[in-house]
């Protein structure tokens, strides 16, 4: 995966304005226009529009993605970049096919989250914030994912994997290698769909059923 990143690198001189690109499909634009109607002003659709962009641009936001969002919503580029860089879930550089976000906040930390991180670093051969050479996994630490009762939690795409330990984490990795789901683009897609009224029956599917059934024993 190319390390090139047009938003976070730090040049010595200002760069020329990037080319404008248009990747929003007709369907995306329709979705965006639907979401815009939820609010009294277009600007409010900034976060949803960035999610759409993250989906359309393959799981991360490029400068063109930010321009496209700004142009659709009538905002300034700097403003949209400010929003995109504020929130941690907007990816400003390419991610692996699966983005492993290991919660290492308080409860998970005392229940072995760092062991999982070390195991993954060792097994995948990458450090925090890095992507494996095959582009399969990006490893991150996450702040509290708020499922402390099921510590340790690992978020992959749109799914929380619970009760992960350093022993069973490699099983998860094997499962993910085989899976087409839980990619950054699918996460963005799910979020966009959730925002559209009437989409309730279309999505969720097995993932959240599992989450319901698979919630930790003592919880039920």
């Amino acid at each position, binding site marked *: 995966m190319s390390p090139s990143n*047009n*938003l976070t*690198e*730090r*040049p*010595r*001189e*200002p*760069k*020329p*304005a*990037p080319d404008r690109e248009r990747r929003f499909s007709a369907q995306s634009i329709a979705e965006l226009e639907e979401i815009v109607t939820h609010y*009294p*002003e*277009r*600007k409010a659709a900034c976060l949803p529009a960035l999610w759409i962009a993250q989906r359309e641009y393959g799981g991360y936001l490029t*400068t063109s993605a*930010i*321009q496209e969002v700004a142009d659709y*919503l*009538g*905002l*300034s*580029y*700097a*403003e*949209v*970049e*400010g929003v995109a*860089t*504020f929130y941690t879930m907007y990816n400003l550089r390419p991610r692996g096919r699966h983005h492993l976000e290991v919660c290492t906040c308080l409860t998970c930390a005392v229940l072995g989250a760092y062991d999982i991180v070390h195991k993954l670093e060792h097994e995948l051969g990458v450090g925090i914030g890095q992507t494996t050479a095959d582009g399969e996994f990006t490893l991150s630490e996450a702040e509290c994912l708020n499922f402390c009762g099921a510590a340790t939690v690992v978020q992959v795409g749109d799914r929380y994997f619970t009760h992960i330990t350093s022993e069973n984490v490699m099983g998860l990795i094997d499962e993910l290698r085989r899976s087409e789901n839980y990619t950054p683009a699918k996460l963005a897609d799910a979020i966009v769909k959730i925002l559209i009224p009437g989409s309730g029956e279309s999505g969720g599917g097995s993932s959240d059923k599992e989450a319901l059934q698979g919630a930790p024993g003592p919880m039920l």
Partner: protein
Amino acid sequence: MSDNRLTQTEQSLNLPSEKRVKIKINGIQVEVPSGENIIEAARRVGTEIPFFCYHARLSKGDAANCRMCLVEVSTTAPDGTVRKMPKPQAACTMPAAEGMVIETETPALVKDRKGVLELLLINHPLDCPVCDRGGECPLQNNTLFYGPPTSRYIEEKRHFPKAYPLSEFVVFDRERCIHCARCTRFTEDISGDAQLGFLKRGADMEVGTFAQTSFISKFSGNVIELCPVGALLSRTYRFKARPWDLLTQRSICSQCSNGCNIKLDYRVNQLQRVNARLNEAVNEEWTCDKGKFGHEYVSSPERLQTPMHKRDGEWVAVDWTEAYRILVGRLKTSGVSVAGIGGAKATNEDNFAFQKLFRQVLRSPNLDHRMGRYQGPTNSLMHNRFGYHTMGNAIADLENMQTLLVLGADLQDEQPMLFLRIRKAWRFKSATVVYANDHATSETTNVSDFAAANLIYKPGSEIALLHGLLNVLITENLLPENPALDLTALKRSLVEWTPERTEQETGIPASEITVAARLLQHSPTAIIVGKTVTEHASYPDIVAALGNLVTLTGNIGNLNVPGLEVNSQGAADMGVLPDVGPGYVPTAETGMSTHQILESAADRMLQTLWIVGADVVNDYCDPELARRAVENCPFVVVNDLFMTDTARLADLILPIASVAEKDGTYTNCERRVQRIYRAFDLAPDIKPDWLIFTEVAAQMGGEANYFSARDILRDIGEKVPHYAGITPKTLGESGVRWNYPATEPKPAAIVPVTYTAPVRETLSV
């Protein structure tokens, strides 16, 4: 894009309130407007509250972030019990309310300020010795007065590359930034280009442009002055001087007709930088980049240093005696075949002496300062109908308008301060803006960004558009009652101008025309007209059509056609026009207009042409004619600072003083007479224009009783009725806006205007 922004009406920090409340600050009882913030309220009792991020002209939404202005606040309940708020409060956003008790100097607050400064400084590089801001830095000052003597921070500081060139004019040192959001708020609240924003968050947060591209703004220089630390610095001034080594002189920006008040900071007769000077009526405290960075020419080594005479095609430096000998000899033989062009960039005093020389000594009526297309009669165009020649409104009045129609103007370029006022009216005072022009613009900030209606019409179809707007106003019955007006003829002439017909002619969708017209029903409405219109062949007809609009909507005093050059207003006031003398008094004999002068020179009908501070070869609306004129005229004398293309073709060049080297007055577009002061010494062989005219007059045998610009101003005060009472003393710091003498109001009249579809444009001379 305006319809996307509901949040346009950010309230400014100090809402003027009728209601007064009694509050107590450090034991002193004081009455302040209800809702005034505590920093301003404390100033009334002479108490200073330190701050960084607060700025009265910026919206308060992002203020209160530096936490420097914390004060202790107690509130008084209706029953008289005083309750202290548990936490210290930011004074900059705290609205004064009845019975509030403020403490600003308690031991806890002293500690809080030390704490805030310590936190601000932990990541600050403390490289004050090599920082341009050192010596005039609020961070230094506040640390001196309120800060801790040492820091307990032993971890590593944030590091960023130094001196990142943010734009052509601004360098950015991220390490020094204290994240006060003044610059980001400026680009959003004031200039409107929204080029700067905060990126990332927490301790990693930084100010930046989109994707590290250049900071493109017409007003970028202001952020340098707004920055309370040395993070945003001027590229041109960087490492040039220490602030305490600079001498400062008050001045007026010479770049356009807005007349921004500026300060010239100079050292050893070299201009180092230009800063804005406060004038609430004109520029508040802003400058545009043209003004802030466009004055380097005054200290340019390219400046002409002596008079030059062209002998056999070669330039020869001559002394003034020789120059005058050549010039006077020439003038004496030319008789009345003499003409003068220019003056729009010279002071009132220069212009007065200029016209006096021509009218009284040379006996030639041929002088004109106009460079644009319209060179018709001076008084009949607007004055005879509206009672004024250019701007009906003062600049500051514009912000109190309900509706503003900007017609045919790239306002951010032509009239930057009018642009800022209009934007202020929109952003802070909920005004509605209608924008119409014959081309769209891609500038980072422009009126169309916030206009409620954007009408891009086909070039030349202004009158059709105005007819269409008026048609909607009449058919929808949106005009105020005015029984005195007979509208039958007008109605008949407008009946065909339905929105659909207007759409055919202008290319603007009929629905948009209807929407825009409806917006214009709200009074007061001011109209600002720009270059696209004034340079139009049928400009007089457009003015007539605009006249119908302002008359019918009851805004007869609100039409504004601001001039373009620093003193185009003053030159007209002083009578540098072929048909009127000083004070717009019609002259017995009408001379030639600029165009006629140039034509006659081009036809070798003119003996001597005197061009004063105008590069006609490049700047005249018909440059080709100007070149032929200068080439064909047997003797051309040019007053200029530089060897311009026009000067190069001339026969004699007289080097003149720049804005920084002479005293005098300029009259800006709203008729405000403002003083400029000599900042540094003239080179020995450079003279101000007025002195040249006076000395030539003397050598020609005329009266020469001027020994200073002040003498001329005194004479102007006596001879020009509008300038009566204007003396250096009455002008003071912020100048005086002259008014037309009160006369009988002119009867409102409607002038039906016929529209002719644009053909190939011809000069309307």
